[in-house]
């Protein structure tokens, strides 16, 4: 009970932080179980290896969960974070702050994704850079405009002219189509080939 009371006192983000690893393991376990369930109707050759791998993985998840829950219930001192062969996250910052900043950053990532899906890369990228620098970066109007234009020029030269990328049209393709028309009209002038 003391342990549960201690968890309650941490607030929402604190609780998520304390049991976040366990929640993540539960999600991974759920994904594996659902993925295994889907293989039931597959031909033998197709389902053999997925099951050979999936069943032990699910069992390992269960073992990990048991260890996590036992540690939570025991309420002993938090085990020092193990060193892993990977870049490690900074654990010094208070969790609520990390969660808020992460949510903001992923909102920007999703925003860029949505913009690309709606109006295509050539419109989204300069606008995204401008808005990010103005709002999140608190840069000056001049710096934000210059950075947006610079990235647009880089994108156009590298991806449109040199790599000849076939751009995603987007849900509202018209503005990008106009840009592509202008860029293609400029191609002979820039001697980038027809």
């Amino acid at each position, binding site marked *: 009970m003391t342990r549960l009371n201690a968890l309650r006192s941490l607030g929402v983000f604190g609780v998520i932080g304390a049991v*976040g*690893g366990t929640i*993540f*393991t539960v999600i*991974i376990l759920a994904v*594996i179980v659902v993925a295994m369930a*889907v*293989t039931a109707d597959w*031909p033998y*050759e*197709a389902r053999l*290896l*997925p099951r050979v*791998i*999936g069943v*032990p*993985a699910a069992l*390992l998840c269960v*073992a*990990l969960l048991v260890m996590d829950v036992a540690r939570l219930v025991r309420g002993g001192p938090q085990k020092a*974070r*193990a*060193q*892993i*062969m*990977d*870049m*490690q*996250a*900074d654990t*010094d*910052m208070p969790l609520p702050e*990390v969660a808020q*900043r*992460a949510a903001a*950053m*992923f909102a*920007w*990532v*999703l925003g*860029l*994704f949505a913009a*690309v*899906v709606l109006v295509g*890369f050539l419109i989204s*990228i300069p606008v*995204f*850079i401008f808005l*990010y*620098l103005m709002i*999140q*970066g608190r*840069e000056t109007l001049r710096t934000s405009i210059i950075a947006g234009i610079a*990235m647009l020029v880089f*994108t156009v030269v590298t*991806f449109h002219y040199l*790599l000849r*990328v*076939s751009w*995603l049209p987007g849900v509202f393709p018209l503005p990008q189509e106009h840009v592509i028309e202008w860029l293609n009209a400029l191609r002979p002038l820039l001697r980038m080939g027809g």
Partner: protein
Amino acid sequence: MIDAAFSAFNSLFACPCVFGFFPGTLFYLFVGVLTGLALGAIPGLGGVVGMAMLLPFTFDMQPGAALAMLIGITAVTTTSDTIPSVLFAVPGTTGSQATVLDGHPMAKNGEAGRAFGAAYMASMIGGVFGALVLALSIPVLRPMVLLFGSPEFFMLGLLGIAMVAVLSGGAPIKGLIAGALGLGIGMIGADPQSGFPRWAGDHLYLWNGLPLVAVTLGLFAIPEVVDLAIKGTRITDVPRNATSGVMIGIRDTFKNWWLVLRCSSLGVWVGFIPGLGASVVDWFAYGYAMQTVKGARDTFGKGDVRGVIAPESANNAKEGGSLIPTIAFGVPGSAPMALLLAAFTIHGLTPGPDMLTKDLNITYTMIWSLALANVLGTGICLAFTFQLAKIATIRIHMLTPLVLSFVFLAAYQSSANIGDLITLVVFGLLGWFMKRCGWPRPPLLLGLVLSSVIETYLFISLRLYGIDWLARPFVLVIAGLIVFSLYFGLRRGKVTMPVAPPAGKA
């Protein structure tokens, strides 16, 4: 074999040329080196992110040029990562964490230039030493690899994933689950045996499997960019005397040549073992130097140049070591090597016997590229330390949207489909949560890369030998190694290891 080595060297300087005069392979190697140096100097980004971003650009290149560029990136990030380590006590990559311990006190004592001179020269010697060991290992490995058949390569694939998973530090169970997840994700798409679309439903995009570039950028680049933005750290200005005394440091390296060679050998060995690698090699070398160098216990940690030389020679030498299992057995021991293996596949190269026989020329091009990249990287660092240090001081908020946009564009190059972007975002979230929850990501990437190879070798083995292949001597030896590494790794996981400071943080 010597002919192939010289022919590969000549091919570095051969056309097709870029801009009409610059030899193609050398040019792309140079591009890779410049990219690697810039990424190494920015704390938080590193070789994996750079390789994943540039991999789509290699699709239309000659295989030699493509691999030279990717090796150029990964070879030198551990050279320029010294700059933020010494000047700001912020490791540029995980490979330069130990360098901070003596490098930064040297900078505080006004000896930053000496630390740079010693680190760069030790890095160059270590890197060239690693390339030399790789070259010398080929005649030794070739007869052995030629004895291997599909059962042995299947077992080697399992060994690679098992070792990387359990040696991923104190999280062996998480490592094993991540490896299994990677294998499962690699099986999405049409089954090579029956053609049945696994976990793909009616989505044609998934029938060919998830694109590796988008997955890698999601797993590694998005979480690093998000974390850089979360920290929002700003490194203060570069001290004006940052580059004075470089020659003294270079002389220090030659005075300690025996230490350099020993630590380089250690680096090659650590690189050779799948699962160890960048995050431990510098600590191994630093610890080894502390145990063996005269008077180290009194002076290490207070600005002893030998404390810089030891980790820097080892972390560059490890690339040569890690290329050995990648090229000879198709077992990548780390995330950059998994990407290199993916580049092999993209360019129609098969690791194993082919790389040591008919594609030997490509193998030697990679070895020359590794050696040249280290020389080039050191030369550029010596000449432009001050400018490279300035890169580390760029405001993170300026960098974030630019890198993020580039990551989106690079991911879209996978198959020019909206699915690439969905994959990127989904794996970006997965990668960030894995990082936050202490799950190692390299085993997932290795599982993904090795998935199709393992499955193909398994079915070939079953067709050719039934279950008799399980009794082949090399199969039994490799099975023993798998059991040993699982046992060793799970036992090691019970011991709490010291927590190293994350890259980008002192």
